[in-house]
């Protein structure tokens, strides 16, 4: 087990600057001090986390705040910064990390967008599900630590055994029937099949790829309906990544978004400047 990453004394305000300064594809340059990890340590570093929930818990605990008080928008930014960092380090991320990224982006977008006033919609605060999951995971993370602290055989405890008396009948060999052997084979085979299933993992759609794709679909001076950019074949995850990509592009002032009427269709067009190029006056 790898020790948790060391906490660096960093004022919470500095984390506000996490509004990341990278553009799609470009090298990650500006990272807050407590986020910098030597590239060769990246692998070890990611292994310190047991998955996206664990990473989120770490990000929350680092700020010394209660899970219930978490600022989803901010934590999403921090989470994305890690993901970007890991991807910049050529580190192959488990699909789960991308799914969580998409989920966070979805929650964030729902918080940022004006909410309809209907009562039913009010009840489903998208943050609640995330918080519930975090609390539940934290509970079992703690339970696992407690379990590990219990004294156990061959660590703190040993079975006491004395030498056996001399005239000792030989201890019989265990009996094994053919059916036991076949049942064991059945178990091994079944497990092997299960193992193969698990090689099939979610094809992750990265935000960067999506941005590249969107840049190609959008044209300057022409508005494109948002709906036409969503590809149902990419599933829920794809839709969320598309939103995430659009939000990234908004932040980079790469797109303009227009909604002429309330609840009317949303249109996008490429902003006046090209990504990565200086704006010409």
């Amino acid at each position, binding site marked *: 087990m790898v020790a948790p990453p060391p906490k660096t004394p960093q004022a919470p305000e500095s984390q506000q600057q996490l509004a990341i300064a990278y553009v799609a594809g470009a090298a990650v340059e500006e990272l807050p001090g407590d986020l910098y990890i030597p590239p060769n340590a990246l692998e070890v570093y990611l292994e310190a986390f047991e998955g996206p929930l664990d990473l989120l818990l770490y990000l929350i605990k680092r700020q010394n705040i209660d899970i*219930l008080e978490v600022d989803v928008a901010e934590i999403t930014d921090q989470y994305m910064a890690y993901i970007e960092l890991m991807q910049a380090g050529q580190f192959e991320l488990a699909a789960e990390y991308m799914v969580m990224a998409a989920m966070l982006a979805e929650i964030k977008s729902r918080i940022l967008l004006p909410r309809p006033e209907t009562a039913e919609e009010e009840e489903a605060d998208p*943050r609640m599900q995330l918080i519930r999951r975090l609390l539940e*995971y934290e509970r079992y993370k703690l339970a696992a630590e*407690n379990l590990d602290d219990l004294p156990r055989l061959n660590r703190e405890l040993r079975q006491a055994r004395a030498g056996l008396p001399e005239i000792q009948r030989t201890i019989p060999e265990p009996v094994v029937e053919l059916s036991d052997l076949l049942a064991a084979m059945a178990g091994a085979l079944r497990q092997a099949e299960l193992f193969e299933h698990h090689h099939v993992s979610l094809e992750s759609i990265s935000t960067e790829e999506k941005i590249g794709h969107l840049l190609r679909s959008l044209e300057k001076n022409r508005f494109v309906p948002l709906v036409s950019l969503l590809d149902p074949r990419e599933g829920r995850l794809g839709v969320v990544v598309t939103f995430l990509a659009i939000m990234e592009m908004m932040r980079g002032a790469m797109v303009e978004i227009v909604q002429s009427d309330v609840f009317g269709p949303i249109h996008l067009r490429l902003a006046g400047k090209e990504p990565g190029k200086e704006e010409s006056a």
Partner: protein
Amino acid sequence: MNPELKSIVEALLLAADRALSVDEIRSVFDEADRPERDELKQALAGIAADCEHRGVELREVASGYRLQIRQELAGWVNRLWEEKPPRYTRALLETLALIAYRQPATRGDIEEVRGVSVSTGIIRTLLDRDWIRISGHRETPGRPELFVTTRQFLDHFNLKSLSDLPPLSEINELPEALPEEA
């Protein structure tokens, strides 16, 4: 109390390499002089008392009674072995904890809480160690295997029953609404 009975029971406990149940101990006696359960329990209590100032203690775990080296002496005793006791990964311990507290639990149940897939290696290791077993299948699509912990698991962790597990922390009541984000 028959002092000889105490000696026999102690010898049995020190001969076996596992915990022995009261019935297992009784079964080694001829029917004619098989001790009553009460008598046997008294002998066990006598052994426990004798251990007071010794290097071993009598412990009741899930499968029965065993004499074990006192925990405080682990520092000295462990030096007899070159090999370090195995350390388990957090992934394994979290999986084990989920099965222990939620049993019966499927792989899906575990993955849902942990947010990552459970490796086959972990399940295998737990099955190999006889800490978990498959108790059946859940009647949902795919009929996933249901895992439960075993008595060997309790024995290994020095527990008599699942209720001796450290209590799971309470989840505080969630508020009706969360504060608005800035």
